[in-house]
């Protein structure tokens, strides 16, 4: 992962899928942040994906409300209703758009599937965001301490990382998910976050290892800055690209992890709803009531696709020269190091999402 260089203009090099000349780089008087933001805006797919993603969250939250606050949709997701027309979706487009009473249909016991799906989106988004934020925070803390202090601190922290990384994400996720029985979506997400910080930690550590040798850190140290100040004011802002990109990818794999665990039956439990759980409950009804499958399925794909596109756009924006594609298997470069540095003891097993 190359670094975002402090003040020097990024060389406009024709990278992979990135037209440097079109972006007018090196314009005077622009901060790194603005340059990166502008580069992100140039990636239309990523911007659209971001808007779709936010729009979907707002829609799902406003539709059925949060906690005690009711939304604009009249039917609660747990409420049992009389079966209308075999529970078929009432949404229709012929003769003008009309929603009807149950636009997404009803499930076998008569619950409104629109409300269930919205609740599923809420839960899935809550899980993915909490995993993303919590695991990123953990990873940044571990990675920056290990990378900054090196020596035995680094050795100990990285061996702990290796311990967690040996267990495939889906396996430990299923075990943790089963343990979290009854904690609901936030509890599940926090526990899952506890076991998914490793990739971020290794990437951040690698970034810190390179950045701490740079001149500006040396200068800060000579000027008498404390360790905390160097970490927070000097190194961390320079590592923000790696952190943001890896946390987006983490979020993208988090939604698939959550749906997979719920599908296996160890995630969010029955009266509540999650997109993976809805598919798991209704896959046998595929031939008789296909809509019970299609609605949650398309929203899973839509959410994951949006996050992946946003992540890709961010990676391009932060790091246009090296566009290594690593969606699920973010493999860090220090795995094998040129020029005699030790190889990391245990590489990164690919996440077992299969």
């Amino acid at each position, binding site marked *: 992962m190359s670094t975002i260089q402090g003040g020097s203009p990024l060389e406009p090099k024709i990278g*992979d899928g990135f037209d440097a000349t079109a972006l007018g780089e090196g314009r005077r008087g622009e901060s790194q942040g603005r340059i990166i933001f502008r580069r992100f805006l140039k990636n239309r797919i990523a911007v659209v994906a971001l808007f779709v993603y936010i729009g979907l969250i707002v829609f799902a939250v406003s539709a059925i409300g949060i906690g005690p606050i009711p939304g604009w949709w009249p039917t609660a997701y747990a409420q049992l209703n009389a079966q209308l027309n075999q529970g078929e979706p009432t949404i229709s487009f012929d003769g003008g758009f009309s929603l009807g009473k149950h636009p997404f249909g009803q499930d076998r016991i008569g619950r409104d599937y629109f409300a269930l799906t919205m609740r599923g989106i809420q839960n899935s988004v809550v899980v993915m965001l909490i995993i993303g934020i919590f695991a990123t925070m953990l990873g940044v803390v571990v990675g920056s301490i290990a990378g900054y202090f090196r020596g035995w601190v680094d050795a100990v922290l990285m*061996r*702990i990382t*290796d*311990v*967690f990384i*040996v*267990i*495939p994400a*889906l*396996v430990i996720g*299923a*075990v943790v998910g*089963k*343990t979290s029985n009854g904690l609901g979506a936030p509890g599940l997400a926090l526990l899952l976050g506890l076991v998914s910080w490793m990739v971020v930690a290794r990437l951040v550590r690698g970034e810190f290892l390179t950045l701490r040798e740079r001149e500006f850190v040396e200068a800060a140290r000579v000027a008498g800055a404390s360790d905390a100040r160097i970490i927070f004011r000097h190194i961390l802002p320079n590592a923000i690209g790696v952190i943001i990109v890896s946390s987006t990818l983490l979020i*993208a794999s988090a939604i*698939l992890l959550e*749906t*997979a665990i719920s*599908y*296996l039956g160890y995630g969010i439990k029955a009266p509540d709803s999650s997109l993976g759980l809805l*598919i*798991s409950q209704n*896959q046998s009804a*595929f*031939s008789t009531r296909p809509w019970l*499958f299609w609605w949650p*399925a398309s929203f*899973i*794909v839509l959410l*994951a*696709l949006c996050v*992946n*596109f946003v992540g*890709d756009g961010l990676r391009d924006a932060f790091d246009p020269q090296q*566009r*290594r*594609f690593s*969606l*699920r*298997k973010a*493999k860090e470069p220090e*795995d*094998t*190091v*040129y*020029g*005699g*540095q*030790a*190889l990391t*003891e*245990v*590489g*990164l*097993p*690919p996440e*077992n*999402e*299969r």
Partner: protein
Amino acid sequence: MVSFIARRVVVSILILLAASFIMYVLASASGDPLEDLNGSNSPNRQALIDARVQAQHLDVPPPLRWGIWLGGVARCVVPIMGGCNLGSTFSKQPVIDLLPQATASTIQLVTTAFVLAIVLGIILGIITALRVYTGFDYIVTLLSFFLFSLPSFLMAVLLKSFIALGYNDFLADPQIPPVTLALIGIIVGVVLQLVIGGTWKRRLFVFLGSGIATVVILWAMAATGWFTKPSLGPVVIIILSAGIGFGAVSLLAGLGNRRAWITAGINIVIAAIAYFSLQGLFNISSVGTLVILGIATLAIGLVSGAIVGGHDRGLMMRIGAITAVLSGGLVLLDRFLQSWYHYTQAVGGRPIATVGSQTPSLGGNVWITGLDSFTHLLLPTISLLLISFASYTRYARSGMLDTLNQDYVRTARAKGLPERTVIVRHAFRNMLIPIATLVATDVGALLGGAIITERVFAISGMGALFSSSLGSTDVNPVMAYFLVIAVTAITFNFLADLTYASLDPRVRVR
């Protein structure tokens, strides 16, 4: 080097110990192991509970129970102590007896998908890298993003509902309506012209040629009842073998290389002779015979290449081996296809299965059982394939683009080498180095099986062992599963680092 390996092994063992402890405690804490018994109303309930507590040491707290479990595992590692013991399941079966069967069915499931994903992924990745920023590149990129965002269970359920049902229904009345026929032809034409690229004249030619050829072939297949009684026959085998030979020669040696043509020709002729002479042997073949024939085919390819070789012996041996193995595969495929009709009759006309890994009590010779495995593993293999295939495509693409920007590629072009040589000999080989590491680390995850895919398709492999045992908080099989994947993951990561160091001399291990 020795100290590096020794250090690695010691650290790996410590990591394994720590990870197994975490896993054991978490798995034990994940639920109540007596849940099913507590809920039962059998008269000897208390006796059953006591027996399970006794057998599983449930009276010991989990961290200490981990010690007991570890003692059993240690016996597996140290041979003199004897009595390898991974504990027993709730149904009093020793876990060590469950593992071989589960591992075997997992290996059977994942191997094909793994190999195909790598081969197809690399091929597609290279094509997109060579056609970078074209429509084809963007389509493949979008497609791989889509595949990344598709949860595996979703893919599996879709395959089950569409491919299996669709093809089985189609077989009941194998007629392709004209509209579908035209649509398939157009799709094939569009894709191929995107792959080939070039001027619009060439594209149009490719589009029309491939589209019309596809339509005609499919129509002929439907009209002659090929779908119910498929076979290749000698003519098609010879034509396809010639195509394989042509492909191997043009890719690896260039069309001007006479020795390459001779090597490929010899192997095609041998394949044609084998087709006629081996049919009798095939009818009484077992798996062992087929393995021997396969090895013989490879040997023929290598030997013919070595004899013709001259100064380019290695290259000729490769061409010979590729041609021989692929045309031999065609002969084999033909024999399998000949059994297809009998097989579909035996399973009631709906061959593509959606659950399990074999039809119970089917019997039959090696061809029938082979087809049976094929139809059962087809859908899970496709679903696994599509998932990992996307990431290999992306890695191969970015790897190839990186390599094509290197100075040695520019040098190779500058000294006037043909583009084929530059790509195949200079760029392709160096691109494979990072992929080799990726493959090695992926193998580690292979034995873990495919938890979700095994669940959807009801295959009793490692993943199923894990998820069903976790469901009843039966810790011993869960730990056995963990042990297998953790050991393979660590071993193959280690091998990956060594591979990288040996392939890329700039990397040193210390």
